[in-house]
Structures are given as C-alpha cells and as structure tokens.
C-alpha cells in the first residue's frame, strides 16, 4: 500500500466497497425531515388534484384561458417540464457518448429527473384538453369508428414524440439501474426492499456475459436517446412554429427550443443536486468540478438562447410583416412587458455571471443563479405562448389573459408531483450510479504501483486528463 491512487473526479473515494456503502446508505430509514417534506409535497399535490377535479367537472373555463389566448399556463408548464427533462438525457446519453468523465455521479439523478419531468409534462396536454375524458382519440388505435388521428397535426407528433421520450427515457433509466439495483438487493435485509429489488434487478448477477450485452445495449440506447432528445423539443417547438401565429411561426424555433431545454434542464439539475448533496452528505460524489462543468454548459446554452432572442427580434424587424413586427414590440412594451423582461433578465443577463470561475464553483451562487434561470425559462414559454396569442392578426380580438387559481394550483401541483416522485426515488432507488462510479475509480489491483496502473489503465486509469 505504498501509494494510494485516487480518482481525479472523486479524490475522496478510493474503494469499490465504499461506493456501495455510501450510496446504499441513502436507502436507509429516512429521517423526520424527509417525511415532513413529503407531507408538504403531498398536500400541494392534493390541492392541485382538487383543482384539476374542479376543472374536469365544471369545465376548462375554470382556467383563465379565453378566446384569443386559448393556451396559457398549462402549455407553458408542459413545455417547461419537457425542457427540464432534456438535461437528464443529455447528461446520461450525450455525455456518455462523448465520454465525459464528470457525468458518472450525477447522471442517475439527472435521468430520474428526466423521467419524472416527462411524467409531469405528459399530464399537461391532458389537463389542458377541453374534454380530457376523450384524450384517447389522439391515440392511433383501431376503433369501430374506423377513423384514425390526423398525422399532419403537430399535436399528434407530440403524442409520438413525448410518448417515445417517456418510454425510451424510462427504459434507459430502469435498464441502466439494473446492476445497481442488484447491488441494492445484495445489500439490503428489509423484506419489501429485497422483494422490490429482486424484481427490478431481473436476476442480475453481474456475469461477464451480462455485462457485455449490457454495455452494448446501453451504448445503443444512448445513441438512440441522443437524437431523440433533440427531436422531442424540436417537435414541441413545432407545436408553435408550424402554426401561422406571429411570434410562433419561425424557423429558428427547433434549435432555439432545444438549447433552451438544455439550459433550463441543466439549471434544474444544479438546483436539485445542491440540496441533495448537502442533505445526504454526498460532497465526495458531487464535487466542485462537476458544478464547474455544468455551469459552463449552462453558460453556453444560455448564450445560445439569448442569441436566439435577439435573432427573433431581428427577424421580426427584417420580415417587414406588420403583425410579426408588432408582436415583438408589444412583448417589450405591451401589457406583458414584465414577463418579457423577467425572461430577458433571468435567461440573458444573470447567467453572464457564470463567466467568473469563482461563481461557477460557488455552490450558493450557482444555486441562486439556477433558480433564476428556472424562473426565466418558465416565463420564456409564457411570453412566447401568451403574448403571441393575445396580440394576433385581428386587432378586434386582442385580449389579455390572466391565470386563474385553478391553473396556479395545478402548476404548483405539478411541481409537487415531480417532487413526490423524486423524493420517493431518493429513498427507494440508488440515486448515484454504483457501477459506473466504479469505472472512474482506480481498479483494485494486486500489484500496486505505476506499472500496474499503466498495464490495466484501460478505462480505469486515474492518470488521464480531463
């Protein structure tokens, strides 16, 4: 034991067994604060559920939606959650393909976030329907009516895109977790956990053969998930861009939305990981290096988004289209100026602080900035959706929208819904990837020393650069 070789990303973790111990310790009996938090979340969720119930029984008129602005907070929140979902897949799949070293400890939490965010997002298209009880008309299933849905509609593309995204991201999430659940299975004595993990680990034993196919399957899933992540938010953006609404009908929407999604998703990852790291004392796994890397990506995507804003204004001016021009002037100066300026400040100006490395490695600063980004990104969708509809072609039908208590309760409930799943996830499933973390730790070797490391460095070596 002459030299102890340390992982560059996780210098405070040295042994495989330690990873298992640390990670699986999260699955112990939660403390009181956990239950208090869960109770609060459930209360908010119940309020949201009640609001939805009222809306279903009485009619969608319970929302603040009106004739020109027939999409509002629901679709805003839908796009928001789809956006949040994106970073999870990005971190797990895209960074996996790019072999980014720093993803291992955070990707599980990010992936969980993806799945839960899509589960949350997926509710909103149903919530916002006038007749949610016939939502299944949107599904292409054979019925006695002999009629099929309209494949030309961007909303149907949404059904396909979001449905695929939910399926694939959930698969990716659950599949990637199989070895870890096996580890949890092996490490627990609690009967219900044992049962659950046995089922969810599909009898995983960690044989070399299983690993061989698993690695490949994981790689191909990652390869499929990467274009999927781009397509989903493109399709969501086409809900708007395929229309002829001034302020919606623009070709830059797909890349602009994807950048925005990654931007907001990464911000959300930071927002979530900061408290988890603190509460569960996972400082050894979520190091400043991780935050620095994520903050850089937030900065880059933030600048793409801000550039897209400016491009929109330029194109509106350049188009010489009266309605197009006026909608953008109106956004800045009209009745919803505050929303627009919240969006510009939170997404365009505040993230500029991340140019400073000091800010990037300061956890409290990052936490604050990412919360602003989350707010800003919600308002970005609000601005796009509401201002465009409130100020369309026909001046006679210009009218402003104001969310009702039902909408606010449902939107708050959606956060609770997401939080509920996340809280349950933290206590039930391994929140940090055990197997993959081991990959970035130095392999346990009989013969220690440089030579041994060099010989077996493969993917394990700590000596590699970033």
């Amino acid at each position: 034991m002459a030299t102890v070789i340390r992982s560059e990303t996780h210098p405070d973790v040295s042994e495989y067994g330690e990873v298992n111990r640390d990670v699986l310790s999260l699955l112990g009996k939660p403390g009181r604060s956990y239950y208090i938090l869960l109770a609060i979340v459930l209360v908010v969720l119940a309020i949201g559920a009640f609001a939805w119930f009222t809306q279903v029984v009485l009619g969608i008129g319970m929302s603040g939606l009106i004739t020109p602005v027939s999409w509002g907070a629901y679709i805003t929140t839908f796009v928001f959650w789809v956006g949040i979902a994106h970073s999870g897949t990005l971190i797990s799949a895209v960074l996996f393909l790019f072999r980014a070293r720093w993803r291992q400890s955070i990707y599980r939490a990010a992936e969980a976030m993806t799945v839960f965010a899509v589960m949350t997002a997926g509710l909103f298209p149903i919530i916002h329907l006038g007749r949610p009880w016939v939502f299944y008309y949107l599904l292409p299933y054979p019925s006695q009516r002999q009629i099929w849905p309209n494949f030309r509609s961007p909303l149907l593309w949404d059904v396909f895109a979001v449905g695929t995204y939910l399926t694939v991201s959930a698969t990716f999430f659950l599949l990637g977790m199989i070895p870890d659940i096996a580890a949890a299975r092996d490490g627990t004595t609690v009967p219900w956990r044992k049962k659950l993990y046995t089922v969810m680990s599909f009898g995983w034993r960690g044989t070399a053969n299983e690993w061989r196919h698993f690695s490949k399957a994981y790689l191909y899933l990652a390869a499929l998930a990467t274009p999927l992540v781009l397509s989903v938010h493109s399709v969501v953006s086409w809900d708007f861009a395929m229309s002829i609404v001034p302020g919606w009908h623009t070709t830059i929407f797909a890349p602009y939305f994807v950048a925005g999604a990654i931007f907001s998703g990464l911000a959300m990852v930071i927002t979530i990981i900061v408290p988890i790291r603190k509460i569960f004392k996972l400082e050894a796994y979520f190091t400043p290096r991780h935050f620095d890397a994520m903050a850089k990506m937030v900065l880059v995507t933030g600048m793409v988004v801000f550039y897209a804003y400016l491009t929109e204004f330029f194109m509106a001016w350049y188009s010489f289209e009266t309605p197009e021009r006026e909608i953008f002037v109106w956004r800045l100066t009209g009745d919803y100026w505050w929303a627009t300026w919240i969006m510009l400040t939170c997404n365009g100006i505040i993230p500029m602080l991340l140019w400073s490395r000091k800010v990037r490695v300061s956890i409290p600063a990052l936490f604050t900035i990412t919360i602003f980004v989350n707010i800003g990104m919600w308002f970005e969708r609000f601005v796009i959706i509401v201002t465009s509809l409130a100020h369309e072609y026909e001046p006679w039908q210009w009218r402003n929208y104001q969310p009702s208590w039902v909408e606010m309760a449902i939107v708050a409930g959606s956060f609770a819904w997401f939080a509920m799943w996340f809280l349950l996830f933290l206590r039930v499933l391994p929140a940090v990837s055990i197997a993959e973390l081991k990959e970035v730790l130095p392999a346990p070797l009989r013969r220690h020393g440089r030579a041994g490391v060099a010989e077996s460095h493969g993917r394990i070596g700590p000596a590699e650069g970033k």
Partner: protein
Amino acid sequence: MSNGPNRREFLKVLGVTGAGAGLTGCGTGGAERLIPYVTPAEEIVPGTSTWYRTTCRECPAGCGMNIRTREGRAVKAEGNPLSPISHGRLCARGQASLHGLYDPDRVPRPLARKGEDDWNPVSWDDAERQLADQLQQNRGRTVLLSGNYTGTMDVLADQFAASLGIERLSWEPFGYEPLRAANRMVFGVDAVPVNDFRNADVVISFGADFLETWLSPVDYAHSWVQSHAYSQGRKGHMVWVGPHQSLTGLNADEWLPVRPGTEHLAALAIARLIADAGGNAGSAAATIANVDVANAAQRTGVSVDRFRQVARIFAANGRSLAVGPGVASTHAAATAVAAAVAILNQVAGNIGSTVRLENREEHAAGTASYADMQRLLQRMQQGEIGALLVHGPNPLYNMPENDVVEAALAAVPFIASFSPMLDETSSKAHLLLPDHHFLESWGDFVPRTGVTALVQPVMTPVFQSKQTGDVMLSVARRLNAPITTQANTYYDFLRERWARDIMPGSGIAGGFEDAWREALKVGYVQSTAPAAPATAAASTPDSAAGMLASMNVMEAAFTGEAGDDSYYLIAYPSYRFFDGRLANRAWLQELPDPISKFCWSSWVEINPATADRLRIDNGHIIEVTTSRGTMSLPAWRHPGTREDTIAIQMGQGHEGLGRYAHDRGVNVMRLLEPAADPLSGALVTAQLRATIHNTRKWERPIQAGLHSDQDGRQIARNITLEDARHRDEERGFALLPITAGPQVTPRGEHPVRAPGDYGRGVGVHVEPDVHPFDARVKNLQGSAGWSPTDVDASPMGWPPPGTHYGEYSEAQPRWAMAIDLERCIGCSACTTACYAENNIGIVGPEQVAKGRILHWIRIERYFEGEGENLETQFLPMMCQHCGTAPCEPVCPVYAAYHTPDGLNAQVYNRCVGTRYCANNCPYKVRVFNWYSYEWPEPLNWQLNPDVTVREKGVMEKCTFCVQRIRDAENTARLEDRGARDGEVTPACAQTCPGDALVFGNIKDPNSRVARVAASGRGYRVFEGINTQSAITYLKKVSIHAETASAPEAH
C-alpha cells in the same frame, strides 16, 4: 302549484323528436319517451318545419314575420319576404322575439297581490271577476293606459272603454310628438311623415336613428341601403347632424357635429342656402328669409363651407330626404328641429316625392304625449283615478322622476296589469292578468296607412296566459256592458271586424273565408285606395306662426352647471332594448351593442380627447351627476361624440322585468328632469348638463372587441367612388348587379315570391384578378416565411391540386359568401339570427368580460380618423371557410377538416378541445365552450332540433348553416334535382336588412355569389397568409378613402 311553463301541455304537441339535441353521452342514460300526437295537426309532419306568417310586435314598426315551427314549437323567426315593412328581414329585436315567447320570467298565470313582492295564484275566472268588480266600482274613474293600439284592438278598446266608462290613454315612450306637432304647424297635418328612403339619394338625418329604432327601422334600413350603397357606379350620400353618432350616425358619410340643441339652425341654414340658389320655399319663405347662415355656423360650430357643401349636394340631386329629430335629439327646441326639417324638405322639393304626409295610424292623433302622461300622474296623485288598467307601457321605468310616478301609482287604489312580465309598473299592480306573447295571439296591426297586417298564433301558449282582448270581452260580458259585438273571443271579434271593415265583400270567389285564409298566408292586406296625400295648409295656427318666426334664433336650453367638467348629456334609444322593454331577452343582452360592443351593462360615451384629458380609459368607472342624482357606470371612448358631450343609452337599469334585465347597468331616465317640450308635449331627453368624475376604479368592461383600431392591417377596407367605378369598368361589366336578392324560400304551403327576379345585370363571369403588387408581395412573403401561392387563389379554387382524392372532386360545389361592406350597417341582426339558428350558448356578463362570448358571427366596428373626419367601418366576421384553412391540419383528431363541398367543418363529437385550431385561426372566429351553457326552461324549447347542442370542452364556429344546406340537399333529392341557387341561405344572410351577405355555390358562375364576388371592390381579409378564404368582402365606398394610385397590400 307549479309556476313553471305548461310542460305537460307542451309535450302533447312535441311530437317525436327530443327537445334540443345534446352532445353529452350516447343516449344511454335512461329510456327516452316518445310522445305521439293524439290527433295530429294537419300540416305538421314530424321532423320537418312548418312556417307561419305573423307580424312582429316587439316595437311599433310591425314587421311581417315568418315563424318556423318544429313539432309545434316556434324555433326561428324570419322576415316575411312579402311584407312591405320587413322585406323579408328582421332586426335583432325581431330575431329575439322568441326569447320573449319563451322568457322564463314571464308571469305564468294570473296573480293577485298578497303582500309586498308576494302573489297569490288565482284562476282566470277569479281574476276576471276581481277585475269586473273593480271596474264596476270605479265607473268613470278608470283609465286604460295602453301602448300603441291600432286596428282591431283599438276598436275593441274603444268599445270596451266607452261601454264601461273607462278613459283611454295610449302612450309610447318613443312617441315622436315633435314630428306631429311640427307637421301640424308647417303643413297643418297632424301626421308623422312617411319617408321614402329607397328613392332618396341624399339623406340628412338630424338625429333620427332610422336604422335602429326610429319609426320603422327594418324598412328604412332596407330601403336606405338600396339607394345609398354603391351599385352600378353610383352611390348615395348621407349626412348626420348631431352631437353624437348613434349607429345611424356611424353609417353616415359625413358628420356635422353640431352643438347640442342647434340642429334646427343647421337645417335652416341649409334650407336658406338652397333657397338662395333657387329652391322653392313655399309657405316657409318668410321663415327662411330670416335665417342668418353665418350666425348659424357660429352657433352650431360647423363652418359655412360645410353647410354650403351639404346644401349643394342636397339640392342638386333632386332626390333627397331630410329626417329628424329622433328621440335623442328631442331637446327643448325639438319641434323647431322638426319644423326646420319639414321646411328643408319643402325647399328641396321633396314633399310629395320622398316625403309623404299621411296619417300614420300607429302614431295617430289618439296617442298621448309625455305631457298627457304627466297630467295623468297628477290626477292619480290627487286621487281622481280609482282604477288603472295598464297594458303595455311601463311608466315607472320609462318616465323620469320615478319617485313621483311611484307615488302616483301608490295613490291608485286598484291597478291591473296585463303585462306578461313583472316589470317595474306591473310589480306595483294589484292584479296581474298576463297577456299572451304576440306569437301566441290573434290580432292585427297597422304599420302604415294602407297596410293591415295579421298577427296569428304560431303555437299553443307556453304559460297560462290569456289574450287581453279576450279578457276585455269576457269582462264586458260579465258586466253586461253594452258592446256592439256578438263575439265572445277576440278571434271572433277580429274576424268580425275584418269581414266588416277590412275586407268587406271581399272580391275573392270563396268569399270571406278564402280571403281570410289568403290574408293569413300573405300576412297582411293592402288597402286599395291610397290615402290622400296631405297638402300644406293655407294658414298656420298662431302658436306655430310664433315659433316659425322665432325658430331661427331659438336655441334649446340645457340646464345644469356650465363649466369645464360639465357636459351635455345625451340619452339615446337602444337598438337592442328599444325603450327598455326588451331588456330581458338574453340574446339581446348578450349581443354586443352595435355602437359600443358592450353587453349586459350600461356605459357612458365620452369623446377620446375629453377622456384623455380626464385620463379615462375604457372600463374606468365614471360618476355622472345631474341635478337628479349620480350614477356610476363604465366609460367607453366614443369618437363619434362631441368633446363637450357625453351619451348614455336607454334601456338598461331595470329593477324588475326578469333575471336577464334585473340590475344591469343604469336607467338613464333617472338622471333626467321631467321636462316636456311645450309645443309638442314630448319628453325632452336632451336637456341637461352633467358633470363627470373619474373614480379611477377600473373594471374589466363587459365588451366584445376591445380594439377599435385596425392598426393598419386592412381588415375592413374602403375605396373611393372613382376607383370602385374604374375597377368595375375594367372588368367589363360596370353594371354589376347586387340588388335586393332572393329571400329564403321557406317550404311549406305558404306562397312566397318566386326567386329569380333579381339578376337584371349582365351575367358575365370574370375571374377576380390578383393585383400584380399583391402577387409580388405574396412572393416576397414567401421568402419571409409564408408559402407563395402556386394554386388557384380564387374562392372557386377548391379543392386545390393534390387534394383530389376520394370524394374531393371538381364536381362538388364550393359554398361561399360575398359580403358587401357598403351594405352592412352594423346592426348585428345577423348575430342574433345566428344565435337563434345554431343554439349558441349564452355565457353571461362575467364570461363576456373575460372574452368568452360565443358569437359565430360578429360585427367588427373600426374607427379611423376623428371629429368630422371620423370614418366607421363595419365588418361582419365569421368563419372564412378557407380553402387552405390553417385550423384544419393542426387538429390531431380530424375534428376540423374540409368537406368535399368546401366547408370548413367542425365535428363536435370528435373534438377533444385542444384549442389549437383557435390559436391558428388568423380571423379568430373559433369560439370555445369553456363550460356547458344551459338554457333555463322554457328557453330551451327554442333550440333548433337540427343542430347539436354543444357541451363543455368543444370548439365551435360558423358552419355556413350546414343544417340548411343538408336540408336543401335532402329536399332537392326528394324532387330528384340539385340544389338551386338561392335555396340555401344561412340565417345571417337571411335576416340582413341591407342584404350585405350573399351566399351560394361560387363554382357556378351564374350564381349570385359568384357574380357579386367578382366585383372590382372584392378582396379577402389577410389574403397574404394564403388562406384562400371562401368569403369575399366588397370594399366600402367612402369619401374618406384614399385614392388608390398606390395599391393596397397586406
């Protein structure tokens, strides 16, 4: 004892189809009962419509009506195409008469007062006995206060009154006393003039809102549009003189915003200028000679040049007409205005041509003036009246100084009201004897001399009401009154009188019975001998002479403080509620007012410049104070109001009447002093100056259409007369016909005029060209995001290439519409007709304020310019049935798609309510059922059984009345032929008084719509988006339009 409608009685006649088809569920909830007729009425075939002719009694105009009934229920009102009054059209009030019939707040049965707001139901027998007792006791001390009785009812009331010692008083709040007084003075004829708008190329209105409420608005609107609208290269002209523009004023080409109270000076100045140029002043020469034009200009605030201009047009044309004053311009010098108008007509040589002085029976000498009413109140207060019978008028609402009216009513020991509604006055009565609604009644009415129209019941009574004529006869019999009739029912009495007076020894072979049947089928009879035209009297009475001598210096006084925050207060009649009697019609409350677009409320109209000065925005709550008190109501910035004037509409602010009218807005009468015009006895409505105070409180205005500015988007366009002429000539048929079109042809046994007597033009079909600039812009837009059009962009171009598949073939028709903005007067009758036809939900004030009104067709009203240059454009906007509809491809479930016959369909039962289609509709004509809207019993009886009732969560919009298309197709099929042009008319086009909307298959080049759409004035809204809409608008021809050397582009 239920106070509800006669549900069971009704079911007997319901027949076989369920009332009001609903979308909810699949009919699995419980077994539905089928109630057959015991003995079927001969003409009723279940599932088909039966039409009845009758006469509208919602206002004193008396329009001929066709009522469509299904299984014994009246479901739709339309104009009787044979009627010389309605010309087959109706206004919104007429359309809404069904809501009077099915008003859920009608007094369901006779009621006797038990206490304050507490009533005992009594039998008709009891009620009549009580009435008879009271009449017996109060012989000689009884007054019958009625509305405007004409014809047989007048005869009966006379007999009834004479035989029982009852004094009669007929009073209409809109009595037009100054017109009668002035004609008495100038011509010695106590008559309201008959105005021939059809032959008047130039019209000057001194505050007469003849398109809304003035005398016979449907007739006038129809006739005026014929002469005024651009046609075959020429166009009429209209000048509005007054401080405030009502709907009629907004339709004028020119506005002379004279100071309130000076309309007569303007009229005299114009008359003087015409006389100077050689006009024949006749007996008024002396009056005219005194007129100082410069002085008039100074006092009215209008330049001499403007007067000169107007005078030149008015005189040079030879076919001109001056009308006025209206109710709103009845100020202290109103009689002088009427006299000056008469003089102006005389000078311009219109007497005998466009103006005829005949005794109009409905405004005959018997009609009481406001001053008469004041005297009656005095007598009531002094205890001279023992019993008061009220049938029609609602003095407690319609007269100022309501405390006095209330005290007078309280001083009468016995009041019986025949009102079918518990209005303000009848709620003070001791006995309620609800009259039938006119659609349940027999009767006749004389809308104009020489025309006697029949009123016949179209269905069995909804409630246990009884016709007042029957009550009179029955009571007279009980008291053994010496009446000279054998008739026991009013029906018999009516026939008796018709056999005696109207059609004596009728020349028809079958005798009276056949003649009677024929009259019922036609709806009216015309007397053969025309009334002798009145001639100017040789001498004028002394009072008149005095007035005529001094009228050139007369100026109506306005009381109240003069000052910076004090404004002339104009109270003007409501197009929707008339004098307020129709305020409980939910359709009318929900109908955006044609002027302000407010619904369900009152508002005060303030000039935008004034409003700016006081920092008032639409929706600010304003306190308006006069000597009679203060009222708070929302402000609306109306550029058609003088800066020193504010205006409030009459008709709202009811304390009774029913759930829809109660406590909505304010009753402006409460702000007025009880002043009567000394010469005519009319109520002076323009009398006060009011102060206004901005409370700075803002409430969301209950208004449809918050923006009156087109924002340069060229939605409602206009064109100069020269350009319109030029463009039509370019097309090779300068004489493009758009004349009074074919009426809807209601099937059934009633004879109607044969269609096809219209197309007198040249049937040349020319493709509407795309202006080269438009084409270029379209291509430019292609690079900015829009697809350039590469398919036939005309409305005939459906289906576009690439979509020919399955049933989509060239052989199918394409239903389309042409809308002539020249002919749209903004009256919104189409909107109400659409509500009636299509079971559109009534959402109520809160929802309207949010913007959830469900109208399928709306009238957009845009203002441009200000002051004398104010240009108002009305534009009916409904689903454009675009060939490349943006709403369709975005629907994920095919609820929106295009039918093979070119309709933009909305399939309710498929709709899941994503509302994407509404977002993507540039015209914003799709409306959404935010809730399930319900109709209280028995309003739901009106629901059209051919149209699905929509539930919550479903998108809906104009369907071009597809049920009528299908109906016509079904009928045509039965007769083994195709549908004929003119056979399908949507409800909106059917009722349009101006015939602005033309519907048909545009693929048929000979169809009327194809020919109208080919006009040089044709354009389509937002053509640049390439929606290829099926609706072609024809530009309004305006003197404010810019000469189009620069072609307009979107």
